[in-house]
């Protein structure tokens, strides 16, 4: 069986689409798992999106917890003899997949950006060496555990005629001496760079916090309204919250237009935006690395370029 799980429904639907291909190729059935009372509503949706069976796990836990959730999955994997397990690659999914792999003594590859058969073996690709290379890896044993980030695959349109079973489960798990005490919003949270179509980003080239308005004005003129940044601005200077941080350890984005102003183009930043449609770089250093990753660039002082560009866009777009 091919088994799919994510605590994020959106990723689960994307994985079901790929899972269906894999299941077809392997001549196996596709299983989806939903865990916790908030997720029962998703079970029917998983079926119309391709699942042949949905396991709905009832639990008293209010929130995701890797210790218990990995036990639920372990039990379902064993019961269904699932050999290929796709898990959504968010922070919860990664720690879940890794713990599960430890418990099952299984191979696991996280953050796979590609998934295919080569010499009849399941083969995956992931970015390594902070964006400098792609490792092509192959499983030499089963079960195979794979985590996939959001938006790598497209969900299938719902097929209302697709039928499947919903199986309710309740498991006894071991008692773990860890518990969640509190869950808080980290920050304002009205920015979602991962969904943005146009992003204007800032980096070290800005001299003070106040100057970031040059970026937001440009973003407004483009009607994109989304401001991103590189690591120093969010993590070190804290001029913007981490919602804005684009890079290997920040958010990975795929807008149709990405404008990087005053960003040098460290590979860690590139790794977060390389899948953008068109990339524009503005930097006063003609040797800046960012230009190598850009479709268009302007060599110039951003303090001069940005206001002019903002005006030009305003004129163009009204």
């Amino acid at each position, binding site marked *: 069986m091919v088994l799919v799980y994510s605590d994020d429904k959106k990723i689960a639907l994307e994985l079901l689409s790929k899972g269906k291909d894999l299941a077809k190729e392997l001549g196996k059935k596709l299983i989806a798992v939903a865990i916790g009372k908030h997720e029962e509503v998703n079970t029917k949706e998983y079926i119309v999106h391709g699942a042949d069976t949905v396991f709905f796990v009832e639990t008293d836990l209010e929130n995701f917890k890797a210790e218990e959730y990995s036990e639920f999955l372990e039990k379902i994997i064993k019961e269904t003899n699932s050999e290929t397990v796709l898990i959504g690659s968010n922070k919860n999914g990664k720690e879940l*997949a890794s713990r599960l792999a*430890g418990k099952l003594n299984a191979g696991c590859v996280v953050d796979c950006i590609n998934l295919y058969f080569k010499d009849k073996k399941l083969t995956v690709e992931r970015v390594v060496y902070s964006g400098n290379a792609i490792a092509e890896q192959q499983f030499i044993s089963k079960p195979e555990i794979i985590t996939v980030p959001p938006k790598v695959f497209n969900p299938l349109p719902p097929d209302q005629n697709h039928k499947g079973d919903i199986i309710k489960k309740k498991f006894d798990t071991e008692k773990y001496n860890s518990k969640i005490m509190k869950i808080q919003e980290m920050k304002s949270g009205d920015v979602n760079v991962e969904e943005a179509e146009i992003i204007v980003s800032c980096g070290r080239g800005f001299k003070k916090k106040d100057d970031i308005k040059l970026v937001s004005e440009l973003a407004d003129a483009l009607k994109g309204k989304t401001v991103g940044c590189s690591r120093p601005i969010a993590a070190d200077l804290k001029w913007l919250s981490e919602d804005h941080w684009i890079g290997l350890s920040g958010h990975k984005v795929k807008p149709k237009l990405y404008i990087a102003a005053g960003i040098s183009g460290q590979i860690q930043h590139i790794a977060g935006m390389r899948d953008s449609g068109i990339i524009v770089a503005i930097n006063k250093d003609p040797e800046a690395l960012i230009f190598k990753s850009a479709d268009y660039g302007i060599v110039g002082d951003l303090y001069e370029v940005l206001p002019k560009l903002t005006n030009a866009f305003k004129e163009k777009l009204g």
Partner: protein
Amino acid sequence: MNIIVCAKQVVDVSEIKVDPNTKKPILQGIAQKISDIDKNALEEAIKIKEKHGGKITVITAGPSNAKERIKELLAMGADEGVLVTLPDKSDYHVTSNLLAGAIKKIGAYDIVLCGEASIDMFSGQIGPRVAGILKIPQITYAQNINVEKEKITAERNMGELAVTTESTYPVLVTVTKEINEPRLPSLMQILGAANKPISELSADSLVSTINPKVETIELKGVPMTRKNIIFKDDIDESVGKLVESLTKEGVLR
């Protein structure tokens, strides 16, 4: 508090150059170092020891030259080092089982600390895998830790949410880079580290035959096909040309 820190020797990724023809990374001759976030884990262990006493053991699974790196960790403040020599072929399954084996061998421990991920591969598998093998609770992505006699409380950085989790001991904790600033050892500490013990454990002494479950078949270059049209002249002119180009690309609405 008895604390075990798992630290990995990695290539310094910031030094990696890409071969302009093959686009593949050139890894030969690149300096080795302890993965940055693992140093944050050790720093946190030292802070806990300063407050509560106890002993810090660092374990590195790697080649025998990793001994030099372990000395750096001893200079920072770890009490003892353990080098687990990796077999020729390894993956996370092999490494995590060897680390778990070494942890069991060390015996009494309260906290296992790791970085959230290594800077070369950035998988973050080792911590949760080891916790799963040892059947102990895991607290991942900790950006803040408070240790008390009977329990540990950690604030976890989950992106949009901060999740505060509590656990008794033993527990495995992975930390983020933001949790602290790792200290630089003084010359005296560097000299003093020479007297601290480093033991070597072979893979055979920790687990019976163990084989990887995943193998890397190729390391590919990253294709970056961008137009690289750079306007360098007069700024007004450049701005005009850029707007024109973006209009043609159809990305302006």
